[in-house]
C-alpha cells in the first residue's frame, strides 16, 4: 500500500480513562498508520468535524463510562449527515454483547471489548480500509 492509513482516535463524553486509546495510538503508529488523537471530552460534533477536516479513513472511539448507546449512534449519524458515510467507525470499551449487536445494526462498523489485542485492531482497520477503497474504485 502506498498511502498511509489515516485514523482519528477520539474520547467522547465525560470519560477520562485514556489508557486504552493511548495503547491503541502507539500500536497504530508502530503499524505505520497516521494517527490523530483528539484528546479528551470531545462532543460528537467535534469528533466528526475533525474526521472530515483531517480526511481520515477511519474513526476509532473509546468509551468506558457506559454512555456508548448515546455517543456511538450520535457520531455515526453526524458522519452520515455530512456525507462522510464512507468513514469507518469502530470503537472499544466496556460494552455488553446485546449493546454491541444493537450498535452494529445502527452502523457502527466494529466494536472491541476488553481482552482484544492491538494486533486484531490493526488488522481490522487495514482490511476495512482496503475494502472501502476497493468499493470506491468500483463506484
Amino acid at each position, binding site marked *: 500500500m502506498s498511502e498511509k492509513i489515516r485514523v482519528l482516535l477520539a474520547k467522547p463524553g465525560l470519560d477520562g480513562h485514556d489508557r486504552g486509546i493511548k495503547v491503541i495510538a502507539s*500500536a497504530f503508529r508502530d503499524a505505520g498508520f497516521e494517527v490523530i488523537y483528539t484528546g479528551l471530552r470531545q462532543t460528537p460534533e467535534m469528533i466528526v468535524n475533525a474526521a472530515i477536516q483531517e480526511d481520515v479513513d477511519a474513526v476509532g472511539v473509546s468509551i468506558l463510562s457506559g454512555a456508548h448507546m448515546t*455517543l456511538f449512534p450520535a457520531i455515526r449519524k453526524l458522519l452520515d449527515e455530512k456525507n462522510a458515510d464512507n468513514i469507518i467507525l469502530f470503537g472499544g470499551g466496556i460494552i455488553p454483547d446485546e449493546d454491541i449487536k444493537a450498535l452494529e445494526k445502527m452502523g457502527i462498523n466494529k466494536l472491541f471489548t476488553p481482552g482484544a489485542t492491538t494486533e486484531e485492531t490493526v488488522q481490522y482497520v487495514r482490511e476495512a480500509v482496503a475494502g472501502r477503497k476497493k468499493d470506491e474504485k468500483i463506484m
Partner: protein
Amino acid sequence: MFDKKFIEESNNRKKKWDKDAEKFRGKKSRSRFITVSGEEIKELYTPSDVNGSRFFEKVGFPGEYPYTRGVHHTMYRSRLWTMRQFSGMGTPTQTNERYHYLLDNGQTGLSVAFDLPTLMGYDSDHARSLGEVGKCGVAVDSLADMEILFDGINPRDVSTSMTINSPASILLAMYLAVAEKNEVPFDQVRGTLQNDILKEYIAQKEWIFPPEPSIRLITDLMAFCTDHVPQWNTISISGYHIREAGSTAAQELAFTLADGFAYIEAAIKDGQDVDAFAPRLSFFFNAHQDFFEEIAKYRAARRIYARRMKEKYKAKKERSWLLRFHTQTAGCSLTAQQPENNLIRTAFEALSGVLGGTQSLHTNSMDETLALPSEKAALLALRTQQIIAHETGVANTIDPLAGSYFVESLTDKMEADAEKYLDEIERRGGVVKCIEDGYLQREIANAAYRYQKEIEKKERIIVGVNDYVMENEKIEIPILKIDEEVEREQTAAVKSVRERRDNDKVKRTLEDLRTAAKGDGNTLKAILDCVRVYATEGEIVDALRPIFGEYIEPPII
C-alpha cells in the same frame, strides 16, 4: 539482622548451591521471571540480600518509626481493617437501597461512587451530561439528593468516604449539611474525601479548574477541616488511578508520594502548621496481581513517608509521620473473559493489601469489566474480605512477612526506585511542572504499552485472555443495567429543586462565594452556605469557572 561472619558463610554456601543448581537450569517453566511491573526477579533470595546491619533502623517494630511493619502497635489484633465497598449507581434512591443492603450484610464503612457529570461539576440536565447520568455512579446535583442518599443512615454512626476530586468542597459541604439536619456536630463527622486533583491531571483526568486554583480549593478545605471537622480525612492521596492508567508499582508509589508532598508544601506555604493538617492526610493504593511486589510497595511507602515527614517537613507529632492507606484491588487486572476468575484474582490482591497493612479495603466485583456490580457480585466481593479476616489466619499476627529475604530485599528496591523518581521529579521542577510538560503521563503510557506488548507476545499469561481461552464462551453471571429512565428522573428532580427553593438566597450565597474566591475568603465556608439553600453543584461550579478558569489538557501520546 545478621553479623558479618554469618553473611560470609551465607555467601559461601550460596556459591556452592549455585554450582549444584546449575545442572537443573536447562529447563525453564517460563521465558522471563518478571513482576507485573516488568522487574526481573532472582531465582533465590538469601540473608546476603538483606542489609542486616540496618535492620532495626529500616524494619523495626509496628507502631514505631519508620513504620515499615505497620502504623499501629497491634494492627488487626485490635481492629480489623475497615471493609469499605465503593458503591453508587443510578438515582440517590437506588444507591441508598444498596447502602442499606451492604450495611445490613456487615460492611463497616460507606464509600460513595458518583457519576461522571457529578465528578465533572455538571448538573444532570446539562447538555454534556447526556447519556452519562447515573451510569458509573450515583447522580448528585444538590443537597436534596444527598438527603435521599443518606436517608436512614446517620453520619454519627458511619464513616463515609467520597470519591470526588475537582468539586470535592461542594460534596463535602452537602455531607456536612446532611449532618446538620441530623443534628450531628461537625466535630463528630467522620470520613474521607479523595480530593486529590494532581492525580487527576496525571491519570484519571476528571478535572475542572487549572492546578493553581484547584490547589487553593484544597488548602481552604484543609484549613476549614482543621478548625471545624477534625475527624475528617481531607485528602486521600491516590496512586490507584495512576496504576490503573498503566504505571508500574514503583511509578505508582513515587508519583503518589510526590503528589502528597506537593499538597503538604502548598499547605505549609499557605501558613498552616504541618502537625495541624498532616494527621488527617491519608493515602490510597492499588493492589495489583503481583503479590510480593505489592506488599513491598506498601511497606516501602510507609518508610519513605515517615522519613520525609520527620526529616524534611520537620513534623513533630508522631501521627504526622504515619502513612495510613486504603487499598482497592486492581480493576485493570480483571478480565471480561471467564469473569468468575476475577473472584480469585481479587482474593489474592486483597490478601496482599492485608499483608501490607492496609487500614481499609475495597474488593472489586467479578463483573466490573462488564458493568457496574450486580447485588450478588457486590456481596461476594465483601464476603472475600470477611473470609480473609476470619478464616485464613493472616490477621493473627502483625506483618508476618517481615524478615523474608525476598520481601525485605524487594521493599528496599521499591524504596530505591521510588526515591529515584522523586529526585527526577524534583530535578524537573516539581509535580505540577511534570504534569504540564507531560512527563508523568508519558512515563505511564509507555509502561502501559510495554505491558500490553508483553501480553501479546505471551511473555505474560492472563488466564482466559491469551491462554486457557474458551471458545464460544457464554457469560453466565447477572449483568446490572442502568435504566435510561434514571436520566429523565434525575433531570426532572433537579429542575424541581430549582423551582422549590428560595432563589434569592441562592443568588446571594453564590455572589458571596464569588467574592470569597476572588479574594482570600475560605471557599469551603462560602460553598457550605450555597448548598444549605439548595444551590446545585453545576451552579456553584459555574460561579467559580470564570474566576478560576478551566483546565485543558494538551493531548499527549
